[in-house]
């Protein structure tokens, strides 16, 4: 049996070698199909991963709490206009929550920052010192303000790179300098490490961070807080932490068991899955298109095998006359089809790798080649060969040797 298969493989190989050009052209369909499936999956996986990384960089354990949709006397109000989050909520979370490692209130506003003749429109974030731990953000210079400075509503600030560049265009050291934000003077005590642009195109370095007490009183003149930002003890505990926060805040807000929350809690996980599903859909679409070219490649194989059987009718008759059984002929053509598709598959995988590297190198798109994409496209190739090779091979196998020998 082993020698029989080995012999048939040799025969099939010979036929392929004798028809190099034709084989190559037939393979081309499979090659293009496989290469595009590999490249598309790599692009899809790459963009998924980069979104995930980007969000993780923002702090993968991060949880946001915002005022939620609520009805006040039948009037639906937007979350940002609502004042349902109080400092007491923040304190309750700080005190009671067991699954949170850091919590900070957050208030923010935008306005003009001024240093002498230079000015720059930016945003100010009022937070507690834990903010940097939650955001996993370091300082490149100076230090973060302290809890004592929060308590005393000190007019100190930590600024981002973009703000520094625009207010101190001559490269002076900003530490210790006074700037003004909406006419309120702030002393710069630290500079944030550069973070660059976020995946959503936002300059993360265009920011001023100050004690929330200062921003509340001096800039916004409010006594509520706009949101609470926290981080779970670990990524795995993030979902449990969301539940815990919900329980604590419902209690804090005296919400009855049948009433809706007047706040929203988001974990990064949800954000990740939202963005992942978008890019996943895109991947499915790309792969679907690539699969069509693979299908066309398969039809190409069927076509050429059909022609090949027709062309070699006499050869088939001869082989049968000297003792080849129907199964020998069937296997010979099937092996030929599978060899074409699998060789095409191998070249396609290599070309797919090349295309992926090209896309990454020249276009700068993030790409990842996963082993499963290689395995799947390879398996699809082999199946394509068998599926589309079967019909012509079967046709050859059932030929009558007498009429095959007489075929002109």
């Amino acid at each position, binding site marked *: 049996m082993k020698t029989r298969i080995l012999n048939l493989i040799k025969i099939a190989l010979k036929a392929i070698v004798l028809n190099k050009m034709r084989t190559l052209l037939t393979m081309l369909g499979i090659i293009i199909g496989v290469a595009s499936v590999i490249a598309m999956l790599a692009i899809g996986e790459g963009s998924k991963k980069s979104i995930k990384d980007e969000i993780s960089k923002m702090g993968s354990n991060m949880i946001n709490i915002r005022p939620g949709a609520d009805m006040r006397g039948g009037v639906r109000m937007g979350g940002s206009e609502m004042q349902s989050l109080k400092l007491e909520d923040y304190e309750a979370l700080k005190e009671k929550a067991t699954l949170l490692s850091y919590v900070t209130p957050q208030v923010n506003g935008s306005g003009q920052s001024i240093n002498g003749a230079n000015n720059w429109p930016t945003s100010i974030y009022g937070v507690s010192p834990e903010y940097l731990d939650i955001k996993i953000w370091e300082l490149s210079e100076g230090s973060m303000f302290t809890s004592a400075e929060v308590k005393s509503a000190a007019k100190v600030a930590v600024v981002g790179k973009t703000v520094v560049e625009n207010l101190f265009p001559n490269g002076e050291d900003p530490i210790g300098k006074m700037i003004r934000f909406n006419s309120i003077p702030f002393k710069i005590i630290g500079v944030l490490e550069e973070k660059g642009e976020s995946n959503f195109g936002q300059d993360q370095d265009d920011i001023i961070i100050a004690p929330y007490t200062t921003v509340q009183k001096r800039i916004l003149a409010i006594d509520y807080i706009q949101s609470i930002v926290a981080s779970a003890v670990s990524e795995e505990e993030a979902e449990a932490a969301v539940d815990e926060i919900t329980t604590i805040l419902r209690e804090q807000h005296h919400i009855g068991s049948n009433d809706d929350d007047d706040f929203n809690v988001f974990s990064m996980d949800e954000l990740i899955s939202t963005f992942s599903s978008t890019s996943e859909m895109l991947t499915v679409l790309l792969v679907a298109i690539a699969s069509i070219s693979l299908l066309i490649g398969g039809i190409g194989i069927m076509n050429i095998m059909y022609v090949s059987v027709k062309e070699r009718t006499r050869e088939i008759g*001869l082989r049968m006359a000297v003792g080849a059984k129907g199964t020998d002929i069937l296997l010979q053509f099937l092996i030929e089809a599978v060899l074409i598709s699998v060789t095409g598959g191998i070249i396609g995988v290599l070309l797919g790798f090349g295309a992926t590297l090209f896309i990454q190198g020249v276009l700068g798109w993030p790409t990842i080649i996963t082993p499963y994409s290689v395995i799947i496209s390879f398996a699809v190739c082999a199946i394509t060969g068998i599926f589309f090779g079967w019909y012509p091979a079967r046709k050859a196998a059932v030929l009558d040797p007498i009429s095959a*020998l007489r075929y002109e």
Partner: protein
Amino acid sequence: MGKTIIEINDLKRDFRMGEEVVHALKGVSLDIHEGEFVTIMGSSGSGKSTMLNILGCLDNPTSGSYLIDGVPVAQLNKNELATIRNEKIGFIFQSYNLLPRTTAIENVELPLIYNSKISPEERHRRSSEALKMVGLEDRMDHTPAQLSGGQQQRVAIARSLVNDPVIILADEATGNLDTRTSYEIMALFQELNRKGKTIAFVTHEPDIAAFSSRTIILKDGHVIKDEMNTNVNDAARELAALPKEDEE
């Protein structure tokens, strides 16, 4: 007389052509013994081709019995017939039927490829021996395109010998060759026959039949004549007697 290689008794073959039934063979009985060189003659429509197909185990008879080398084959299925063809029969065709772009030795190896009992080394050894027997030991790696018609037919003869068959069936084996080359091929057949090979040769040329030891003539599905040749022509001598070809 040697042992019986072919034993045919009341062999009939009918073909259904739409509503009509054509009786191609209407009860043929004959024996061929080891070491015989038989020619089967007949005009077209005589049942000659049908006879050859059944003799070659490419077709089943409608009725009657057929034993080859003692094995009853009339009722065997396709796969069993393939094995019989592979082990007991050597075919030679009018148009050689060599695989194009394939060397002489690879063409000769072909029947042995379908016999997994034979190792590649054995296959190669037997194939080069067979090519030596037909005088083509120095043309082993030539493809059919590089060989003359006579040489191609010699390769085909080597191919028919390689499985050491009990009978060689030749179908108009000289039909595509000129007289000189035909005689060369017939001389080769006579030589093989002298070495003990049993040969059945289908032809419609009486001068070719004259080289065999027995002639069977078919007509309308019956054997109308079956007699031993008392005056066998020697092909080698005939060849020598042919007028010399122009020197190139």
